[in-house]
């Protein structure tokens, strides 16, 4: 028998925080994936909420393209507040 599908597991550590990727589990269906995720990743109150997402459903950017994808931000320094000179006497800005 070949492997069950892979599911990515996300845990919300506590209310107010986003779910965060913690690892993955194999399971035949979503319900069992949740149960396995609970046993594998939350044995010590690591979270208050779990997501499982079929790994095959995740679309990821290509690391080889990360230059083109992310670099344009670096030459737009005017997007950062420190780009602007404000005299020291001017407060609260």
């Amino acid at each position, binding site marked *: 028998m070949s*492997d069950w599908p892979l599911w990515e597991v996300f845990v919300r550590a506590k209310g107010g925080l986003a779910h965060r990727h913690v690892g993955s589990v194999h399971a035949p269906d979503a319900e069992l994936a949740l149960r396995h995720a609970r*046993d594998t*990743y939350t044995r010590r109150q690591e979270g208050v909420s779990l997501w499982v997402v079929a790994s095959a459903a995740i679309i990821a950017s290509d690391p080889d393209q990360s230059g083109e994808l992310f670099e344009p931000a670096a030459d737009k320094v005017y997007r950062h507040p420190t780009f602007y000179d404000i005299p020291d006497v001017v407060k609260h800005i």
Partner: protein
Amino acid sequence: MYTTELGKQPNVKPIGPAEDPALLEAFEARVAADEFIEPKDWMPEAYRRTLVRQISQHAHSEIVGMLPEGNWITRAPSLRRKQILLAKVQDEAGHGLYLYCAAETLGTSREEMIEALHSGKAKYSTIFNYPTLTWADIAAIGWLVDGAAIMNQVPLQRTSYGPYARAMVRVCKEESFHQRQGYEAMTELANGTAAQKRMAQDAFNRWWWPSLMMFGPPDENSPNTAQSMRWRIKRDTNDELRQKFVDITVPQAEYLGLTVPDSALKWNDDKGGYDFGEVDWDEFYAVVRGEGPVARERMTARREAWEQGAWVREAAAAHEAKRRKRAAA
């Protein structure tokens, strides 16, 4: 629990002939700058192979490591000890799963890894091929084997492959409980009746040297250490970690009133650490070859567990298939 890297091919070529030197150079620079390598990043084939071998051996060790302790769950001396041991064994399963997942990100499948373990092709830590004869062995394993594991695993939290490093962070968080419960159980025996004290010393005698072997062969016989250090897969050499373990553990043994089974053990002021006797490397290599006292028993137990659990896996798959069919109808 932990494995050091075993069964390596001595002549792994560091650079495949077909690899683009520019990519390789960029990779080496990233690793040298302590950047993490992530699953979809380009990496040399030898880096990938070394990691698959090391992470899967590590995972197998966690899984096989459940066996020597698992057979003491029903014989734990109190309900408290039973609860603790159950939780520890469950953690080991968890650690195995974190690690299998990390290895799978390198393009190997869970099925291949399990198959390699069950066929005897894959290695796991030599420590698990020693028997657990008395309850004191369970205490000694927690204290020494998990102690050695921590020593090995803490630096791996900064290993260059991201998924492996992240798995190690989780493992290390949980491992400390394993060691402390073992030391506590050992303390009870060491402060107990004469018979309990004898039991503690006997277990200590039998586990001391195998624990030192957990750090792997001496540096001069560890041909791939330099490459693994350069790629930041490994952060310390086997001998450095072994020395650190001895220095930390000897005072812990003294506190318990136990005698370290090594007549050559002596504090060395100049190096600020202990000098200690030579590990029996012939025994180590024999155990690596699968000649450990209970190697066959371990694999038989593992295969039986896998076969006896087959109906559960089949039932879960059948349930899913039925539900999918109903949903389609």
